[in-house]
């Protein structure tokens, strides 16, 4: 009897314990759920706030680029009632004797040529700047890096270009773009070259390699990842550059992509649909680069700045 009783008591106790545990569990679950809803509300409000601040202007550009002339004149963010995007793009391309096609050609020539030169000259220079030891090379390095801070002297640069008959020419604007992009590109290369072991150079020296052979046949191919960063970052900045073509590459035949927008604005000051279609058109190339290489762009920009 007594054993039965104690067994019953035990069972009761166990049941009680189990119940308590269950209660605690549901309580914890409730709390967790509460925490989750707070988390979701917090997170979605952050997404909404950031989108409002940073995406609405782009949304505004896109919807207005798709509207008819009359609808775009209102400059509102309403969804277009009538889609006119194809006509708008055609009009943008046709404007001023297909000026934008010429501008795309000019900008591409400038961007590609500048980058090709930058890749070779900056990687070479960065290799010597990083590896050589001594006071002279430190001074030279400082002079190159100082270019990150010093604003280019405008009219004296035009004066130098004139002396070589390079003002308003492709070689002129390309060399200016190279000159102003050299400091940052060298900075990126030196950071990467620091990670390449010196033993490679020593082995090459024993094999009788000279400076140039060592660099071009061994080091240059090892720089592939940083070449990509240099290409992408310079492509975006040179393609988007407005100031330097304005100064050093003036003339109707020399229009670049950013300048078409500026010329366009004065002619079609009221054709907002065309203006925004033009904005859209010239934003596509950097947008594509961003979609494909966003990680590379981000890491390149942060690496350059934190080490500097």
């Amino acid at each position, binding site marked *: 009897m007594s054993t039965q009783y104690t067994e019953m008591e035990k069972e009761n106790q166990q049941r009680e314990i189990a119940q308590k545990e269950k209660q605690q569990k549901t309580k914890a679950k409730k709390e967790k759920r509460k925490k989750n809803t707070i988390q979701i509300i917090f997170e979605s409000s952050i997404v909404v706030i950031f989108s409002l601040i940073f995406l609405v202007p782009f949304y505004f550009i896109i919807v207005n680029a798709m509207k008819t002339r009359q609808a775009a004149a209102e*400059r509102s963010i309403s969804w277009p009632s009538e889609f006119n995007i194809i006509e708008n793009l055609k009009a943008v391309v046709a404007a001023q004797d297909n000026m934008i096609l010429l501008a795309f050609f000019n900008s591409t020539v400038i961007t590609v040529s500048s980058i090709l*030169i930058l890749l070779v000259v900056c990687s070479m220079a960065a290799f010597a700047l990083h590896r050589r030891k001594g006071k002279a090379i430190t001074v030279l390095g400082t002079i190159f890096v100082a270019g990150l801070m*010093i604003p280019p002297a405008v009219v004296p640069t035009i004066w130098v270009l004139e002396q070589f008959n390079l003002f308003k020419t492709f070689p002129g604007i390309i060399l200016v773009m190279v000159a102003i992009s050299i400091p940052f590109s060298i900075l990126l290369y030196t950071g990467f070259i620091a990670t390449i072991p010196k033993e490679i150079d020593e082995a090459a020296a024993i094999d009788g390699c000279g400076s140039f052979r060592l660099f071009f046949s061994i080091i240059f191919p090892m720089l592939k990842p940083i070449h990509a960063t240099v290409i992408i970052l310079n492509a975006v900045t040179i393609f988007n550059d407005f100031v330097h073509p304005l100064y050093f590459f003036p003339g109707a035949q020399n229009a670049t992509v*950013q300048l078409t927008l500026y010329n366009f604005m004065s002619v079609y000051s009221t054709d907002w649909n065309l203006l925004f279609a033009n904005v859209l058109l010239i934003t596509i190339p950097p947008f594509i680069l961003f979609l494909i290489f966003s990680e590379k762009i981000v890491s390149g920009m942060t690496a350059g700045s934190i080490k500097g």
Partner: protein
Amino acid sequence: MKINKMYSYGLLIPAGLIYALLFLYPTVMSFFFSFTRWNLTDWEWIGLANFKMFFEESSLLIGFKNTFIFAFLTTGLKVVIGLLFAVILTSQLKTKRFIRSVVFFPTLVSTIAVGIAFTVLMHPSQGLLNQTLGLFGINGPNWLGDPALAIYSLAIVDVWKGVGIATIIFIAGIMSIPKDYYEAHEVDGGNKLNAFWHITVPLSRPAINAVIILALIGGLRTFDLVWAMTGGGPGFSSDLIASIIYKQYQAGFYGLSTAGNVILFLMVALIVFPIFKFLNRKEVDI
């Protein structure tokens, strides 16, 4: 010394030539030409007249003042807002990659395109900004048409476009702080705000310094945003030194334009270099 032979100065020649000829040489010559009246072929020495003019003409002097305001205001805002964004984006959010891209994307759009879009958005009556404010019963100001306000409106747009880089740099800085510090802080019973002031801020100092220097240099040199949005107006109220350099060049006053360049150079040298030194010394102290 033998190994230095492997790294011949010859490797420096191509970059050095282009850089010296089209960057260093014009910079050095700008100091000479700023003392002249000049038409690219002939020059006449006029001493300090160009500089005198810069500081006596109110339309030029205002550019000097605006450049100060613009550079320091945008730098301050980029540091504060960028740091806030970075803290949010390093917390446990599932959508942080998306938000990070959203914040960063304006950096890659051309300044001219951004300027045109915001000129429309900031229109006093038809602009989206004031129409939205109107919904809340707020009478929005004439952002770009009010001479007292134009330079601040430009600064807001510049921060909108540039805060993405600051945020990304801060995120890299915060991510490099070991998690143990925060755990130890929590064990000691500290709250999150304390953790921000005593761990995040001091330990992401290199990132903060980088953002300050980058933003100051960029701010002092800004030109295209002003050109796309106000053209320096109304009147000369939102002119910066860089836009004055362009205006004087366009008007054919090459000596005056070059003097503007020299002033800008000196501003960068006298503001950025000391701040750079100061920030770096503090870094060593910690």
